């Protein structure tokens, strides 16, 4: 075997991969998003189901790896709201699709997600697609479903660029690039990361922090959240020490972050903000940062708000401030509080995961639209989802704006003390940057 050639090939492959996954500089954003659909687009003509007895609802979520802690509960809630229910003569049949792969360490896989979206798009009886869990996966699914007039409702995507322009956070061409047919087919029942980042920045300020080092995992969610925090932190008078005054990406496949931690320490931050999901080697990252800077304050977003993250970081996670981009399950009121207590009672005292209520809410939005449409017509279902207004859900009343974003809401702040789950600390109004 010729090792020179083999190694050169491996090297070139990794170089190309690195180039493909490197940061894209934040440039000027595209004009504001198009408004919700009013007239029936050509893509939505003749999109009526063929079955006289079944309506199909799909979900696409990562059903392996660390994500199952959240997604098992999401699927359970979708089933509770939709599976087997009747709409006129039709019975709802629910399909639980997995968009993760073992090859991707149990995290979402773009090829699998596209396959799922195509599967739903090509099923004439599919009337809604619930998902995705990861914003990066949504980028791939939305255009496929847009061409097929299939509405998508996410319980968890928080990257702003999927629905709107946020200067300094979203990329040029977003969000229009995801809607090739010129109309919106995507809605979400959770807030966006511009609001979560801004709330984190506001919280950091009230904690007396003035110098932040901001890291991200290079993914759509992590980068969007970290950049939102960086922008928000500058707005409240703080200084961002990481590269170019915005977030700096870490390599999730690295074996060690000791040198990176030394670099951060030398910059002298009093807070480190990390935009990442759990599966991006966060256990090692937290440990190395804590080892180099035992006293520094660390804050992160809801991508790591899960028990598996804490199991990975151990005591290095103690003291970490965590934000959740909506109202946390233990802070829900009214029907939400009743649902929370019942959930715990039904699950042997176990609290729901942070997104569980939003899985229920996403399914409720679909259920409401199906009832209003009262037929198996994709356009009618889509139109009613996008027109959702003051809908009572366990996550609170939901009204969607023209972009498909939920209006109002809040951001919840927690802190990990010495064990899991973290303790509630603050509730912030959901404000953009």
């Amino acid at each position, binding site marked *: *075997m010729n*090792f*020179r050639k083999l*190694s*050169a090939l*491996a*090297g*070139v492959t*990794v*170089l190309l*991969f*690195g*180039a493909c996954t*490197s*940061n894209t500089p934040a440039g000027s954003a595209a004009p504001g998003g198009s408004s919700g659909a009013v007239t029936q687009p050509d893509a939505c003509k003749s999109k009526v189901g063929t079955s006289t007895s079944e309506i199909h609802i799909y979900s696409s979520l990562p059903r*392996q*790896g*660390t994500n199952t802690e959240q997604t098992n509960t999401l699927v359970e809630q979708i089933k509770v709201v939709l599976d087997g229910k009747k709409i006129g003569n039709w019975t709802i049949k629910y399909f639980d699709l997995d968009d993760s792969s*073992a090859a991707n*360490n*149990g995290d979402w896989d773009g090829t699998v997600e596209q396959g799922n979206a195509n599967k739903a798009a090509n099923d004439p009886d599919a009337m809604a697609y619930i998902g995705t869990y990861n914003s990066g996966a949504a980028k791939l699914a939305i255009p496929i479903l847009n061409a097929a007039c299939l509405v998508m409702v996410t319980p968890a995507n928080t990257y702003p660029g999927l629905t709107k322009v946020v200067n300094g956070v979203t990329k040029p061409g977003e969000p229009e690039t995801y809607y090739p047919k010129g109309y919106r087919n995507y809605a979400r029942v959770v807030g966006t990361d511009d609001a979560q980042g801004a709330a984190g920045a506001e919280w950091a300020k009230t904690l007396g922090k003035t110098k932040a080092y901001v890291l991200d995992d*290079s993914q759509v969610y992590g980068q969007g959240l970290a950049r939102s925090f960086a922008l928000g932190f500058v707005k409240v008078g703080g200084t961002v020490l990481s*590269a170019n005054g915005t977030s*700096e*990406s*870490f*390599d999730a*496949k*690295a*074996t*060690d*972050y*000791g*040198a*990176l931690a*030394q*670099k951060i320490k*030398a910059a002298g931050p009093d807070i480190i903000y990390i935009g990442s999901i*759990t*599966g991006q*080697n*966060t*256990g*090692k990252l937290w*440990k190395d940062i804590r*080892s180099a800077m*035992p006293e520094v304050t660390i804050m992160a977003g809801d991508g790591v708000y899960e028990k*598996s*993250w804490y*199991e*990975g*970081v*151990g*005591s*290095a996670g103690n003291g970490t401030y965590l934000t959740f981009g909506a109202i946390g399950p233990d802070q829900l009121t009214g029907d939400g509080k009743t649902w929370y207590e019942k959930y715990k009672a039904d699950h042997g005292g176990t609290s729901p995961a942070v997104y569980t209520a939003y899985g229920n809410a996403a399914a409720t939005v679909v259920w409401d639209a199906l009832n209003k449409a009262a037929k198996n017509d994709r356009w009618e279902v889509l139109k009613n989802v996008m027109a959702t207004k003051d809908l009572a859900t366990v996550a609170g009343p939901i009204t969607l704006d023209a972009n498909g974003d939920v209006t109002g809401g809040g951001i919840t702040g927690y802190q990990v003390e010495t064990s899991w789950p973290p303790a509630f600390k603050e509730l912030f109004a959901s404000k953009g940057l």
Partner: protein
Amino acid sequence: MDQVIQTFIIGLSNGLIFALVALGYTLVYGIIELINFAHGDLFMISSMIALFLIATVFRLSAATPVLELVGVILLVIAVTMIVSAAINVAIERIAYRPLRHAPKLAPLISAIGVSFVLQNIANLIAGPANKSIDNLFPTTNLLSAFGITTIAVTFQQAFVAMVTIPLLIALTWFVDKTRQGRAMRATAQDPDTAGLMGVDVNRTIALTFLIGGALAGAAGVVQILYNNVTVYNLGFRFGLNAFTSAVLGGIGNLSGAVVGALVLGQINAFSDRFLSANWTNAIVFAVLIAVLVFKPTGLLGQQLADRA
């Protein structure tokens, strides 16, 4: 300057762990010209075994008395090395030996298969999430006793050196000075002739896997006590670095694997510290390409078997 020295120390610690794993790759390649893709995963399994012994069986913590801590860690190293060596010998017997005379692609595919099997076993038993332990060593700076406070050498870093360096010396002595080591070198050079000269080739190859497995076992213990975290896909991360180290130093060359690993550890650390962590892989492979273009046999050439 302090930052440069501190970064060097971090790179040295990581490089030493890479070296232990890289030796497993280079030993096997030197003997049977097989890139044993499962070796990184064997290292991961070892770190899981060590974590299980430390956290569940012996329940060690930072509060464990020093003598007990040292004794149990030595025991954990010994047990993990033995188990890992046994697994590696079994892998050789089941997955590679039946393919000894098959086309070279067959054992390569078999190695990839074993890699997946090991990963899936770990995933099945330990789950997909990171598994961690708290640091068992004191967090004091060893250099502070000498009045140096701007540069830190931790007990963890000292532990890496204390385990790794003696093992590297012992391996070099074994291969260079013992009868079995001579048999390994003879088999690497020409297995048929070595067989005619009375060397039991199958036994020698099994011995090579035994030693490689034991080194992966030691590396697994060092890894969990140094990094305090492991996960089922850890083998890919470390395996890529270790394999690259072996190629950089000269595949089949024991000293080359160590030198390659130390160089790689430094490139990783200095890139993370002074450039961008996101570009470290690209820089590592750019250096590898540059070295191989100008010195195709790696930094120290291919000594153990001159036929790569």
